[in-house]
């Protein structure tokens, strides 16, 4: 113990101490004022857990979740780590289990790290589903897949055919040659092209390494050497920006079609300029919305793969693609007309 502790109290310090206690009490009271609603609300509570709370993508997902919560009379508690911290997300889930939420709907930062906590949640009767990023299959009842790789690949190839025609030479730019989602999208694009548009020739695949500048440079070099290229496939959101920037710099807007994955906030200027006509992704708002409808079905006991579908409000019926996997629906295509509806 320090010497401070052995000294007796003096009159002067008593007032200071009272001031301190007041401060502490005030903080506690202030903190409780932050409560959105008391935890003992009569309706059921679903915890909607993103990878991290502040990203516009997850904020949009929460919008959809809250919308569905209102329609279904569920209290939706949006809570997750501040940054992509796995232990932080595990802590959050453990807390949710202790605070006895009725269901958890989570986008997992790690498929194995979250599994033990989610299994404990299920043991305590909490219904668990995952969306966007899955966990080990025994740690949740169902995974909501935002869009199948095949459907995305096919939509991208169709956009290309619409913009550039069905024959000629094409380029593909990807962010990574190892990331499993990008590999799956590349494969899906190539398969669709081979099947539906056999005269389209994807001459080569360049690596942008998810770096706008690097992707732009490799694309510039290629397009200068191969001016006959009719279109560029982009396999990730950053490659889409790189390629659009390269096409803009070469003054080839309208001559080269860009088709691929695009994130609205990042490609908005290119869409408005007409450099990119259509870009493919899914709607995070709809993911959140659908995830809550699945939670509701789990809570009501109406969730049943044998039915083949889950009802999801304005989205209609969602199909099972496996006994524990539900598909959100067809990919979302952004263009000049609808891009302003999306903010992520």
């Amino acid at each position, binding site marked *: 113990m*320090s010497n*401070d502790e052995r000294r007796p109290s*003096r009159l002067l310090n008593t007032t200071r101490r009272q001031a*301190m206690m007041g401060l502490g009490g005030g903080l*506690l009271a202030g*903190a409780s004022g932050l409560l959105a609603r008391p935890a003992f609300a009569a309706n059921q509570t679903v915890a909607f857990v993103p990878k991290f709370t502040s990203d516009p993508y997850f904020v949009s997902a929460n919008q959809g979740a809250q919308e569905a919560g209102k329609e279904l009379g569920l209290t939706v508690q949006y809570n997750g780590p*501040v940054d992509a911290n796995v*232990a932080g997300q595990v802590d959050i889930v453990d807390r949710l289990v*202790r605070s006895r939420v009725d269901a958890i709907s989570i986008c997992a930062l790690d498929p194995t790290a979250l599994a033990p906590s989610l299994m404990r949640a299920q043991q305590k009767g909490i219904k668990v589903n995952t969306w966007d990023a899955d966990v080990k299959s025994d740690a949740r009842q169902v995974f909501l897949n935002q869009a199948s790789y095949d459907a995305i690949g096919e939509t991208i190839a169709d956009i290309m055919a619409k913009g550039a025609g069905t024959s000629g030479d094409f380029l593909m730019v990807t962010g990574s040659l190892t990331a499993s989602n990008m590999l799956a999208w590349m494969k899906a694009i190539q398969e669709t092209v081979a099947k539906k548009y056999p005269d389209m020739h994807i001459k080569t695949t360049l690596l942008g390494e998810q770096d706008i500048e690097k992707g732009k440079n490799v694309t510039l070099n290629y397009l200068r050497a191969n001016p006959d290229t009719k279109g560029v496939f982009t396999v990730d959101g950053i490659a889409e920006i790189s390629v659009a920037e390269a096409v803009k710099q070469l003054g080839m807007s309208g001559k080269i079609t860009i088709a691929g994955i695009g994130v609205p906030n990042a490609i908005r200027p290119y869409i408005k300029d007409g450099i990119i006509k259509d870009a493919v992704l899914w709607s995070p708002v709809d993911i959140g919305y659908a995830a809550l409808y699945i939670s509701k079905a789990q809570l009501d006991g109406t969730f049943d793969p044998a039915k083949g579908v889950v009802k999801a409000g304005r989205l209609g019926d969602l199909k099972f693609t496996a006994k524990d996997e539900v598909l959100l629906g067809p990919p979302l295509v952004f263009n000049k007309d609808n891009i302003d509806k999306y903010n992520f």
Partner: protein
Amino acid sequence: MSQPTTRSTAPAEASPRPRFAFTRTHGLALLLVIELAGLGVLVPGYLEPGSLLDTSRTFIETGILALGMTFVIVSGGIDLSVASLLALVSVVMGLSYQAGLPLPAAMFLGIMTGIAGGLVNGAAVAYLGLHPFVVTLATMAIYRGAAYAISNAAAVSDFPPWFTSIGQSYFAGGLVPAQLPVLVVAALACWLLLDRTTFGRRVYGIGANELATRFSGVPVERVKLAIYGLMGCLVAVAAMIQTARVSTARANASIGLELPVIAMVVLGGTKITGGAGTIPGTVLGVLVLAYLQDGLVSAGVRNDWGLVIVGAFLILGVLANELFRRAPR
């Protein structure tokens, strides 16, 4: 009000009521009681023993770090690298296990990494005479960077059940988390070390007046080296528990954890400039902050506010230390 006042040896003339001195530790204990009572009202079932004990899983690693940090700050130092070192230990252990080393050997390697990381800090502070803030700000980047570099930002997740049970199992009828005794034992050991040994006296001495302590014949450099080495060792223990608890070793583990650790220690009454502070105080600081953060999340408050609370309590802690301090030492 659980704190005994056995050490109140106040001179009678200093106060009209010398029997009971209301200290900062008492205030903190009272705050904890009020806080838990408040949470008990807000969150149904929060005060059930099972729930309270289970919550300890979220602060055991932070608590272990706070114990070591108490020594560091009492000695007039600071260690900003603890969270980075924790990640490095975890990654070293995970990767060497994945590379084929038996897990106990990998754990040993991890512990050695922790101690080495602490000793590097200590050597730079003690023998190069660099300011601990600068040293550990640098190693905070170095250890984190090394963790990312050697793991290539990939995670190791396939630990055997006996290992993950360190952080995920319970005993005493499923009530007590397996890792809780580690914190309790560490707290007792640290309390004995700081309060009851020559080493502990020297730690206070260095923090209160390094020059005077040196002239009293204390090997200041060796003591400092030992303090940071102890910190590194406790980091390694915390790293084992966290890796077991989340069944994952990855380079971005516990980012930003140094902040709550320092906040808890300061809230517990440790003077940020050194020379004063106690282990019981730190334990109370850990409990107050950890249960507040946990309880508010349980009550439905967004986790983002947790950071605001930690920051606020850091300032509140420093302020309280000033207000409760009497004549300059």
